[in-house]
């Protein structure tokens, strides 16, 4: 079988199993990256969201061969419990995570949004997050978390320019 290689969270990973295995299974089962969650397996919930070349995708819908030679980022690319990234800090302060099962996927979608310079307008954030289901929070605190992360990034960029 042909060997595939992917850059996962900055590290080159090789895979030589069946090429049509779902990316989520390879991440979780072959590489132990269990931060990525499965909620439905059919592209509805977004719990499995990872970044593929910087764009959010549902890893339950993508065969691993589709990601060959590309860059994959998962929640493990953000901070650790002892050293959270600014986006995760915002979720902690604003109440963006309750049961936490949708959270890794939310964070991935939000991360791409913040990185591309999305605005802190609640409506814009809601549109961006519409593919990630959360049954706990009613979304408002997640929207606040993302808005706060956007503002924080803006402030730190402005500070750097000064």
């Amino acid at each position, binding site marked *: 079988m042909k060997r595939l290689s992917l850059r996962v969270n900055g590290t080159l990973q090789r895979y030589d199993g069946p090429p049509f295995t779902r990316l989520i299974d390879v991440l979780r089962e072959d590489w132990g990256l269990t931060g990525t969650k499965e909620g439905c397996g059919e592209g509805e919930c977004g719990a499995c969201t990872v970044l593929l070349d910087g764009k959010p995708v549902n890893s339950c819908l993508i065969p691993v061969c589709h990601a060959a030679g590309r860059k994959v980022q998962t*929640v493990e690319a953000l901070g650790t419990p002892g050293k959270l990234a600014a986006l995760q800090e915002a979720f902690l302060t604003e109440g963006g995570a309750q049961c*936490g099962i949708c959270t890794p996927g939310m964070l991935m979608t939000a991360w791409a949004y913040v990185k591309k310079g999305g605005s802190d307008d609640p409506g814009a954030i*809601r549109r961006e997050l519409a593919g990630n289901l959360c049954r706990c*929070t*009613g979304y408002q605190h997640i*929207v606040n978390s993302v808005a706060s992360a956007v503002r924080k990034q803006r402030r730190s960029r402005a500070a750097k320019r000064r």
Partner: protein
Amino acid sequence: MAHVVGTSARRKEGPEKLSGHARYVDDYRIPGCLHGVTVRAPIARGRILGIARDPAFDWDGVVIATAEDIPGPNVVTLIEPDQPLLAAGEVRHAQEPVALVAHADRSRAYQAAAHLKVEYESLQPVIDPAQSEQVFKSFLIERGDVVAGLAAGDLVVEGTYTVPHQEHAYIENNAAAAWFEADGTLVVLASMQCPYYVHKALKPLFDLPAHKVRIVQAVTGGGFGGKEEYPNMIAGHAALLAKKAGRPVKIVYDRHEDMLATTKRHPARIRHRTAVKRDGTLVAQDVDVLMDGGAYLTLSPVVLSRGTLHATGPYDCPNVRIRSRVVATHTPPNGAFRGFGAPQTLFAAELHMERIAEAIGADPVALRRKNLVREGSTLAVGQVLRESVGALQALDECAKRSGFRDKRREYARWNWRKDQPTWKGIGLAVVHHGSGFTGSGETHLASRAAVALTREGAIVVLAASTEFGQGTNTMFSQVTADTLGLPYDWITVETPDTSKVPDSGPTVASRTCMVVGRLVRQAALDLKAALVAEHGRVPHTRAHLREAALTLCGDAAERRFEREYEKPSGMAWDDATYRGDAYEAYSYAAVAVDLEIDKATWEVTVHRVTSVQDIGTTVNPLLAEGQVIGGTAQALGYALLESPVYKDGVMLNAQLTNYVIPTSLDTPEMDVAFVPAPYSNGPFGAKGVGELPMDGPPPAVAAAVHDATGLWITDLPILPERLARAERERKAPRNRK
């Protein structure tokens, strides 16, 4: 020491969840683990004639378990011993588990399940609850003389209301792993709300003594009641396969199976007849409730009880009769779901208040103000509300914040203009929700919780109350920290593991904060007293606390202070007559919903929800607000979107693709406020919050829909097609003229 109760202390387990380090069942890699799959009946009712392996299939490495493999009685212990772990002989609902298979490879396990041939003889099922002859439970609650009362009002308003099943749709499906240790101890690791329920169910199934069964909660991705009783079943299945295989077995449902097979909110039909005076005084309320329990009794009697006790709404009426029953049908058992029967009956009660307001031409706020409970009011069960009744304050604040009366006038002007593309409406509802188990339930539970000081000077909360998003760990830590006067960060909370924590009862019924939180506070007070006795004060440095710990612990690894539930003095309940203090305390909420309806598509857009609650002291405003917003979103789904479709007792849209739950775009901005009326027996004055937000939004939505369109939609969900049909029916008689 700065106080932490009343502040938005950070979620205790937040960093693990946010970094993907938190481990849910499926994230555990268990050496040698097999994947378990359930073989389910495709028919609603019938007899099992035989189970045979397809000879053409390669059965190598496949483990099969049937009812015959169960060491103890084939019963999932809950209230009544009527539900088997695996159907044997008879099938009573579609998707009932009949056999189990396991294999090291997940897809092989699914294939094996498909090749296990079960032969059935079909029987005629009873699907419609109105046709059922088997009553699981019924209640009759009376106050005053309802017959005389119905004759004494100026007019009688009648109405019938129906609510459908609702799916919990937690984002983590039900999952459990099980294995047997070398000494024969059965260990279960599962996504769950109630470790001691599973403990109680597995002991008899496997004929094991209490100390040989250990139940551990994995990080749990949402519950909402859906992981209250169902984990007994899936844990039993995983354990049975593990026993047969002699290896660990994990069962993780996929979304489709979870939606097809696990519990739902009970559908209900509620009838109201209310006598009222022209001035708005309620004279008599006559309520009839019918709930569909599904094929087995499970928790139906207690769901019905709570539904019954909330069926009049939060009003003081001198003449009341509530008749209720829950019946059996050949459908998957319905079970616990946030609100536990109350959202069903409160939808009817509060929408009915709107119809009364219309019938007598009263302002809906004024009508409610006149009849709402206040301190000194008496409920239908004879309970006198002595304290902590914030219903009126919540209503007034909600009407003010939402601009209710101004909006009604403004929207009336908007709706009057025929050229507008939409109708606009605002509606409100006021609800109550009893905290904790009903009546003597808490006394029977005799819950325990503890606070321990370890030799190393750590302070650990020991309780079986689980965290599944609500904030249990954070709330316990805040209560303990403030009781001891120590920093929040010094407190840790033990994982709910039956080998480590006492039985604090189930994590349900809005009881964790008020009931178990009180036990934790009492235990912390005992620790404080011991520290003061030994050292004159609670040590304020880590080093001093370690020193104190050494003396307090003696030779032991820890010193534990444990408390058991004691009924608050003055509380009385009679199980036989079903009269007395039904709940220690009630929380209250007033909700206003502001919406707009497209005249062409009938699509309803909710613009804003204003929710004001009295939950007593707010221990953690951010988490409490999170409960309110999250619960409101679920309630809006119930009101407007979530439409389970059933045919012959089988859910047809058991997928998130066609069973639609609210997304970030379906969920409006919410304005949440608290008007605390502290409860003297709650920890720092707190009452329950978890279920309350599920109760108010559906009737408020229906009231707003009426305000917008003049249509009374009395059946949930209020889908565009239902609105369009109601409009056609409204026009039809005129057309015929």
